[in-house]
């Protein structure tokens, strides 16, 4: 899948970057963890254990996995919207804490007070978990501002969707980010739809990697279904930002297999379109095939990984089911910090 360099500054690279054996295996495991976790979350929603909105990341695993692998884990900040479970799992947040937040229990990452759309971790530098479409674009730019202000060489990885890309504050942020050369990589997860609206029906121009052109922000379209591509593009974009050259835009061409949230009539796209992606483009299947092909692992080894991942997910689900709800006194805590 061709990666298109939009601005002159984006260096042309070989079309098929390679991952090392360790990287391939790590990526496979991370993507599988997201997939199995999200499948479980879907089941638990169906059982009434999870309420409200629950947006699954299934299909888009290669995006956050590749980007995170290219980042400094625990140092570079990440921020996204409400489709946030995958980001946290790959960044190393505790799956039990994520799942228990989904069920609204005291052991959840936000003590059960935030839910699916609102989870955070100072330790892992994950800043959510934001429910308002587009808000994370400026917030993520602010994370980059703080890094520059303090003279730190960390980067802000700021994710938002194709639908969010039409919000005004995205462009206000682009302008400031470039004006002040802030170390931010804007990762547009273009999964072709914003709820039921296809990109074509909502955007005057559909090549989102070019949305920074008038601010002179380099951008590229990346095959977001291939973790090698997402890793490679992120590596270059992060290097660009970290070296003081300012923002970079990666438009990740990806796809969500499930509905927008758990309640989605899915009439806006055909079953064929969905099954074509699942059968032909699945990031995990491709990763698996490569691993076997390159003899990085045997079928047996991969089964072991699968078993481990399932155990993690089962443990998280059990914890999230049995952990008690927050104490009633939590209603009045964490509103302001007592002076």
């Amino acid at each position, binding site marked *: 899948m061709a990666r298109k360099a939009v601005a002159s500054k984006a260096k042309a690279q070989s079309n098929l970057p390679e991952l090392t054996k360790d990287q391939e295996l790590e990526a496979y495991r991370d993507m599988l963890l997201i997939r199995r976790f999200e499948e479980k979350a879907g089941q638990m929603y169906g059982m009434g254990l999870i309420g409200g909105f629950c947006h699954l990341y299934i299909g888009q695993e290669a995006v956050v996995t590749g980007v995170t692998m290219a980042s400094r884990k625990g140092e570079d900040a990440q921020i996204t919207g409400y489709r946030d479970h995958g980001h946290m799992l790959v960044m190393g947040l505790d799956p039990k804490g994520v799942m228990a937040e989904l069920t609204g229990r005291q052991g959840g990452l936000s003590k059960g007070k935030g839910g699916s759309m609102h989870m955070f971790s100072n330790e892992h530098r994950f800043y959510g978990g934001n*429910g*308002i479409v587009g808000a994370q674009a400026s917030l993520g730019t602010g994370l980059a501002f703080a890094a520059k202000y303090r003279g730190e060489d960390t980067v802000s990885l700021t994710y938002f969707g194709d639908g969010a890309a039409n919000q005004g504050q995205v462009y206000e942020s682009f302008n400031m980010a470039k004006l002040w050369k802030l170390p931010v990589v804007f990762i547009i997860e273009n999964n072709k739809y914003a709820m039921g609206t296809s990109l074509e029906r909502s955007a005057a121009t559909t090549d989102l990697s070019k949305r920074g052109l008038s601010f002179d922000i380099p951008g590229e379209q990346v095959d977001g279904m291939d973790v090698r591509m997402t890793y490679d593009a992120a590596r270059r974009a992060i290097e660009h930002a970290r070296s003081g050259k300012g923002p970079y835009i990666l438009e990740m061409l990806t796809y969500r297999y499930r509905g927008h949230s758990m309640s989605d009539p899915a009439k806006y796209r055909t079953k064929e379109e969905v099954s074509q992606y699942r059968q032909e483009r699945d990031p995990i299947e491709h990763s698996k095939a490569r691993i076997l092909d390159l003899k990085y692992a045997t079928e047996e080894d991969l089964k072991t990984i699968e078993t481990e991942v399932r155990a993690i997910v089962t443990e998280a689900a059990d914890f999230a089911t049995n952990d008690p*709800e*927050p104490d009633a006194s939590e209603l009045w805590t964490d509103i302001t910090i007592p002076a």
Partner: protein
Amino acid sequence: MPNILMPALSPTMEEGKLAKWLVKEGDTVNPGDVLAEIETDKATMEVESVDSGVVKQLLVAEGTEGVKVNTPIALVLAEGEEAPAGGPSPAETAPEPAEAPAVPAEKAAEAAPSAAAAPAAPKFEAAADPDLPEGVEMVEMTVRQALNEAMAEEMRRDKDVFVMGEEVAEYQGAYKVTQGLLQEFGKERVIDTPITEHGFAGLATGAAFAGLKPIVEFMTWNFAMQAIDQIINSAAKQLYMSGGQVTAPMVFRGPNGAAARVAAQHSQDYSAWYSHIPGLTVIAPYSAADAKGLLKAAIRSPNPVVFLENEILYGSTSEVPKVDDYVLPIGKARVARKGNDVTIVSFSMGMRYATQATEKLVAAGVDVELIDLRTLRPLDIDTVVESVKKTGRCVTVEEGWPQGGIGAEIASRLMEHAFDYLDAPVTRVTGKDVPMPYAANLEKLALPSVDEVIAAVNAVTYRS
């Protein structure tokens, strides 16, 4: 005008320093020539000559502090012009003493009463609900259907009415309120927007300035915070700022308040927020009939209307009269139950708690009078006052936060208009003063409850 006056550098400047003269007596000056520099503690400015002429006299010496605005500072005469008879002499134009000739403050106020007192606000008189024809058929329908019918009927009636918002057309509405409208009215009048609330709220307001009648659907009111500047600064104030020329005949609508388990950023009640704004009409119906009749009235209103629906109420059913054109008056509360012991005032989702509490209280022998405000601005305080004069007690119920809430407003108005009739403090039942938590148990605690309404009624009737 031969006199050059001390200029003001800002709307609040009263005096300043004449820092420097750049001309001297006898100089010839042309328009744009700088005559002097003046200073305040905030700024420096050059005084330019407007006409050409000769500087006859400098009336204020360089370096003088405290020169009052509008004091003549120089006399510049055009060729052949005479100094006005009795023109200012330097002595006369010296900075006035700070102390003006003593006029007692009260006397001064007496002398100019118009400057002190603002005229009283005009009183809003709402019409009564229309009389229904004898034996009119009542149809059960959901609030969702009622809103849908209201829009469809008004769109049939007036071509200038159109709907825009996220997912309103092809998806048939995120909560299916616009179902079928695209099919009937086409994509020119039922318009899917990108996710750009600030932009499309502004665009719709501009279209309203130009005479169209937009219905702007916000997927939920939470997302209208992206657009609140256009709603308030553009739509609400336009009529006043234009001296009555430019109107914004439009409706902003969508679900308001908590849904279920959608947490802090998606569960807010904006009733009090918008009801604060002069220039807006704010409506928050509870029943299907009110939803229909008031949305039709809102669409026809020449004013910008904020129409607050509720996701949980969309599916609730009640009776709507089957008449050709069911339009209700804006600004009129509805007495949902007559009673003598206590007045419960609520609106929208709050009415669900209030109604259930009323049923239990009545069963326990408390004769409740229940008022559904329906419109929050203009607020029908008369109906509430009249009721409280009878019952002497009032409990308000709302999902919003307590501080500056609708209940707070009602309590305040009752003190103004029914103080002597109150037998107990006006008591509010509100959402708790916290962001909405996600956990099921905490969410339940954060919302008002039937039990809290009953407890408040027991307290004000001294039954507990």
